[in-house]
């Protein structure tokens, strides 16, 4: 579904990604794990066309993203839950969800998807008239995931959904990710919470200083000495 071949990208003269190749197949859940500053967010920004790639190619269902502007990415079925959630704080929860269905293709399905998101997150329904910026971190994360689902994406990109949340909330966020998987969405998730994320994905890539260091099934990675030593910690 999504294919990156030898992608390099960065900020000005600073290169943050080197020759990254990876793939997400339909129906899969794939994680990209790695320490702070590895380039995980940069990778998702490149896929969302918020930054340009300097070399290599990104393809969604065979279509190159080279000449697709950032605001058309969502039309290709790519929807992201950005790092730090980035809700629209001065809009209410429901208005944020409405913005998730902003595109011409998604607007007619707004009511139906709103029901779906409210069924998934009953809490959001309770809070629907609250300003998004005034909610707790966990609620904001749910709202951000809900917003991303409102476009009816083929592939959901999640950037560290568990960051900055209390352990119980982290648990419920991962439960949610599992639930979203069961709904049939294809998911690509960036995480530092290695132990947890490897329980919900099929495959994973380890990204270090902008390069893919390891790739394999979740079980393989979990068993690898490198991951055990550096990330899971025994």
């Amino acid at each position: 579904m999504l294919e990156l071949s030898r992608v390099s990208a960065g900020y000005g003269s600073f290169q943050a990604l080197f020759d990254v190749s990876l793939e997400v197949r339909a129906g899969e859940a794939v994680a990209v794990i790695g320490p702070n500053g590895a380039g995980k967010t940069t990778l998702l920004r490149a896929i969302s066309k918020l930054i340009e790639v300097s070399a290599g190619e990104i393809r969604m269902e065979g279509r190159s993203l080279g000449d697709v502007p950032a605001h058309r990415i969502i039309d290709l079925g790519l929807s992201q839950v950005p790092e730090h959630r980035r809700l629209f704080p001065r809009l209410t929860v429901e208005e944020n969800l409405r913005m998730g269905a902003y595109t011409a293709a998604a607007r007619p399905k707004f009511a139906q998807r709103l029901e779906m998101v409210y069924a998934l997150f009953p809490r959001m329904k309770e809070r629907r008239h609250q300003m998004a910026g005034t909610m707790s971190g966990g609620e904001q994360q749910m709202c951000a995931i809900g917003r991303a689902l409102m476009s009816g994406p083929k592939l959901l990109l999640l950037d560290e959904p568990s960051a900055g949340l209390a352990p119980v909330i982290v648990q419920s966020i991962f439960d949610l990710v599992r639930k979203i998987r069961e709904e049939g969405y294809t998911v690509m998730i960036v995480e530092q919470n290695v132990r947890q994320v490897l329980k919900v994905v099929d495959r994973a890539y380890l990204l270090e200083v902008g390069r893919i260091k390891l790739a394999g099934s979740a079980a393989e990675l979990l068993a690898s000495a490198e991951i055990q030593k550096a990330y899971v910690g025994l």
Partner: protein
Amino acid sequence: MDRRWLPALAALAVLPWVVPSSYVVHLLVQVLLWSFIYTGWSLMGRFGLVSFGHGAFMGIGAYAVVLLWNFHGLSPWLSIPIGVALAVAVAVLIGYPCFRFGIAGHYFALVTLALTEVVRSVIVALRDTTGGSLGITPNSVLKDGVTWSVQALQFADKRVFFYIALAAWAFGIWVWHRIDKSMMRYAMEAIGSDEQAAASVGVNVTRTKLAITMISAALTALGGALFGQYQQYVNPETVAGIGVSLQIVFAVIAGGMFVRFGPTVGAVFTLLLTEGLRVGIGNKVNALDSTIYGLMLVLFIIYMPTGILGKLAEKLRRARA
């Protein structure tokens, strides 16, 4: 707009017949036309697009109509659309590169400020046609017993213009209302807080900003054209230039740019202030009024950034809760 507003509009419509003097009618026309212009500015301002360029749009509208009338005998009914189109074209010329290359905040304010000064300078420089800094008067058809002309949009009775101004003002409020209820408002709100996140949900950031700027410039140019037509006189200092831009920004901040009738309250407030100062201190102390204006602007920004009506609405909401 829904039917609830009809009684209010009707009440406004009888005003010119019940007020004591034509001077009051004059003040009402001023308030309505400025309210319309301020409302036009707020369409952008409320989303953080702070423009100091609206003096330019107003000037373009006002001058286009007077010049086309004087030199080509073109009726305002034709020249107003031309003036509005011209202002919209200038808005695109300035807006597109700004939005495309992410010029926002202070830099956007500065670019638009420069635009205003350019337009004013051009008006002054072309003094053979525009009358320069002395201004220019549209050729009057109101002589030899003629008291009105629809074609020339000239009326000896101020009350006629009152209704034109009232219609313009109601139109401005309606545009605000429509935008407020549209996806455009959400999109602009989203852009205002996070452009990248807005783009990621599918908002064409450049195009949306440009669209709101064009609407705002069009309303302001229309307001300028009507204002010049009402005054039967345009002058680079009173319908164009930085003074006008600043007046717009001040009035809107004072009234409240985030609420529908905020700009209108701003127009009433500034008019009362100016008239009060004029009666109170007269013209004895030069430039004292602009000093007071400046001072009040500072006070408003610090103590009442949501403006008079915004503050009031907040208070009401809190009282109800």
